[in-house]
């Protein structure tokens, strides 16, 4: 960690900053103090208060001063004030879009200001905006670096020498190859990561007194920059590429297209893999192929509740809350025109500003219930009970439920997404049973409904709960026959996975079969065998999956 901070002090312009992940405690304070010492006294430091308005960053009209002076008074933005210095952003994970955008602009412009984003998110919470993480080279975790001594640090003289040396440091072909090779082996997609690793390697060489980047520099850079971005564990041992294409195809394609990976690259990769933290490896191994749903889908802008994100012109009488400060701000420039006397403020209707808020949306749970003859009728009762229980809770949570039943030759939506307990109860009571098991049709219907829900304006996340014994015997076109029915169902399940719908399959068969499990894995969802599923246990399983959904 102290190494990363030292590199940041050597090349603030090229590297830009770091994310420090951990709670506000003594350890973090000592890390920040260390960085303070490294950057030296001459650089400006600014700490951005959490929840600060983005206007403060850009500067602009100073309202209070303007009103009292009766002429426009400009205020310098914090970005301009801190140029070339250090900006600390506490509770970085809470920073809103405008603040993040301003900081991104600052990083992209190469102003030389260092950004320390202090990420205080707990496990399962939304971390710092991805766009910021992408641009900051280092992601330092304060908790799992307990053994890293902070006192191994370069002196100010050494840092100054390193800064002078930096422009003269060259990066060899081999070093670049190693970085790219490592990035690709770890599944790091962004070229920005490569570029940042190159800069980190150069800074490290400068710090070590070299003017040529060595293998050690590359290893340090890869461990610091690339390892935290790994999305997969490299195949160990690193597979040597087959030499055959090289021999068969001696095309003069500049001679470097498919060269066997050099020894240096292998050693760097190995060192970087060793730097992956154990928790992360576990996480990567468990990661399925499914795609995470974005932030934008999980929250939405609604007029009345949630966190404030700004204001807009509007009439407060429609129920939105008046934003007093912004209203005054809007009225301020007009005072002279409206002939307001000193001490009086003339506010007109067009000045009214109302608050805009952002609220998290609930989950829409799509229950897909097998009503075929093979699913014994008493399971239907249990499924109904579970849906009712969840619906009762949804009033508190803003969750919605939808119900699809499938039997005979087709699936039908019995209940479109609703929060209404009464409607749900009626639809459930009318749920008929008997006939074949058109599993594929059910999955297709569920997928369509999920897409429809996701496209809604204030959609939250979607969760599919499939209660079935998976004895599929009706194909998608309504004809009988187990083999076709099963292959269709698998196809539909894969399509659901590609749509990124999180799912849970509850196997209700008295003897759970392998096919149900394979459908669950094709959907990329969880599988739970509950041969004697009762309403409470179904509810428990749904809860567990939901928590997992939130944590991922």
């Amino acid at each position, binding site marked *: 960690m102290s190494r990363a901070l030292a590199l940041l002090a050597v090349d603030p312009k090229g590297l830009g900053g770091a994310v420090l992940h951990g709670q506000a405690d003594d350890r973090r304070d000592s890390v920040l103090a260390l960085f303070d010492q490294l950057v030296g006294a001459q650089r400006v430091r600014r700490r951005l208060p959490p929840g600060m308005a*983005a206007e403060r960053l850009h500067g602009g*009209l100073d309202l209070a001063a*303007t009103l009292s002076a*009766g002429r*426009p008074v400009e205020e310098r933005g914090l970005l301009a004030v801190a140029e070339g210095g250090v900006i600390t952003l506490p509770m970085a994970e809470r920073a*809103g*879009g*405008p603040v*993040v955008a*301003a900081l*991104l*602009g600052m990083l992209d412009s190469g102003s030389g200001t260092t950004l320390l984003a202090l990420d205080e998110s707990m496990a399962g919470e939304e971390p710092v905006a*991805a*766009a910021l993480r*992408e641009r900051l080279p280092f992601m330092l975790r304060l908790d799992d670096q307990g053994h890293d001594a902070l006192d191994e640090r370069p002196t100010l003289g050494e840092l100054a020498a390193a800064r002078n040396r930096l422009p003269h440091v060259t990066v060899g*072909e081999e070093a*670049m*190859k190693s970085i*790219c090779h490592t*990035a*690709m082996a770890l599944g790091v*997609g*962004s*070229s*920005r990561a*490569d*570029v940042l690793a*190159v800069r980190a390697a150069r800074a490290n060489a400068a710090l070590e007194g070299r003017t040529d980047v060595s293998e050690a520099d590359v290893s340090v850079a890869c461990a610091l920059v690339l390892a935290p971005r790994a999305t997969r564990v490299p195949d160990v041992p690193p597979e040597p590429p087959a030499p055959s294409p090289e021999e068969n195809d001696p095309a003069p394609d*500049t001679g*470097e*297209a*498919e060269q066997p990976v050099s020894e240096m690259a292998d050693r760097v990769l190995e060192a970087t893999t060793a730097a992956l933290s154990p928790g992360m490896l576990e996480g990567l191994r468990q990661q399925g192929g499914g*795609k995470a749903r*974005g*932030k934008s*889908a999980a929250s939405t*802008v609604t007029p009345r509740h949630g966190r404030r994100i*700004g204001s*807009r*012109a509007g009439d407060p009488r429609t129920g939105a809350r008046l934003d007093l400060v912004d209203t005054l701000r*809007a009225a*301020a*420039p*007009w005072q*002279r*025109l409206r002939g307001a006397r000193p001490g009086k403020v003339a506010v007109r209707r*067009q000045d009214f500003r109302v608050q805009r808020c952002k609220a998290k949306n609930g989950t829409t749970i799509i229950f897909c219930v097998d009503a075929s003859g093979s699913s014994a009728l008493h399971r239907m009762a249990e499924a109904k009970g579970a849906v009712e229980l969840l619906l009762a809770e949804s009033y508190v949570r803003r969750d919605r439920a939808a119900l699809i039943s499938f039997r005979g030759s087709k699936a039908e939506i019995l209940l479109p997404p609703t929060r209404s307990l009464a409607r749900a109860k009626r639809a459930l009571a009318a749920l008929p049973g008997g006939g074949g098991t058109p599993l594929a049709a059910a999955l*297709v219907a569920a*997928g*369509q409904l999920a*897409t429809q829900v*996701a*496209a809604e304006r204030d959609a939250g996340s979607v969760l599919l709960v499939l209660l079935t014994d998976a004895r599929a015997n009706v194909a*998608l076109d309504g004809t009988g026959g187990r083999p076709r029915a099963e292959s269709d169902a698998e*196809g539909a399940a*894969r*399509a659901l996975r*590609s*749509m*990124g719908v999180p799912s849970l399959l509850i196997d209700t068969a008295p003897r759970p079969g392998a096919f149900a499990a394979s459908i669950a894995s094709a959907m990329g969802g969880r599988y739970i065998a509950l041969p004697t599923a009762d309403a409470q246990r179904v509810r428990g399983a749904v809860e567990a999956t939901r928590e997992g959904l939130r944590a991922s």
Partner: protein
Amino acid sequence: MSPSFPFSAIVGQHEMKLALLVAAVDPGIRGVMVFGDRGTGKSTAVRAMPGVLPLMMAVTGCRYGCDPGAPCEECEDRRARGERLRSGKVPVPVVDLPLGATEDRVVGSLDLERALSSGEKRFEPGLLARANRGFLYVDEVNLLEDHLVDLLLDVAASGVNVVEREGLSLRHPARFVIVGSGNPEEGDLRPQLLDRFGLSVDVRTPTAVAERIDVIRRRDAFDRDPGAFMEEWNMEDAKVLRRIQQARKRIDSVIIDDAMLGRVTALCMALGTDGLRGELTLMRASRATAALDGAKKVTLEHLRQVAPMALRHRLRRNPLDDTSSTTRVERAVAELLAA
């Protein structure tokens, strides 16, 4: 303002570069949507555009950078007051719309300073005005608030920004090529918005080590000595600039014959694209590509090059078929556009 990375030094990403050039040659194509992960050179490419775009004539002092041949209302007023309008060559604007931009900043608002100091009601132009006759780049357009996206696309389509707020009422020209970027995994764009973009390209990180090394090698050279690096690529950028210039002159005389038009409709019908935007865009884009190639006539090769970018975002999704739309377009192209 630090110099931006030269356009021609961007490694690979041919489809994205072609789409941007096509849009530069024929702004009527209406915008390019670039999908892809972070760090694939999307922003770099767009920000490099001014380097390859010919300078344009603009009225000096006009806040909308309007064309001397077709002056805006404000310039007309100035002329009516007896002022002689001068004009000069200026670079084509490429304006960045930051993710957190407010409606005020985008549309423009009351000029607070003027209002306070002289009590004068004056319009302070926003980003749309600055982007007039140039490019407007919206990073992460899929995360932008809906009402702003609607507004942007509406202005992009009409070429006029109508302001009715804060007691202001005016309109000013805002003709620009909108370039959006986004990562589809972080939220989709509504299909009706997607359809408004003329072209859509997918960018990926290069998978060949050699290409990735090129990326960082050039970046490193640029970081170390931007001046020398720009110098080195100056010639290449100038070549691209000339290509655009020539293509703009040539495009009106490029012929697309009935046989080619037949292929265009056949392709769109086979893919089941909604509406006629697909056909129209494909036709315009292939004509622009031919013009860029210096050809007099659109050939199959031109169609093949632009068919995926003109059509891939206009296909209906089939829930049972998880093949990407790119593959579907390519399959249809291979089938129907065989020589």
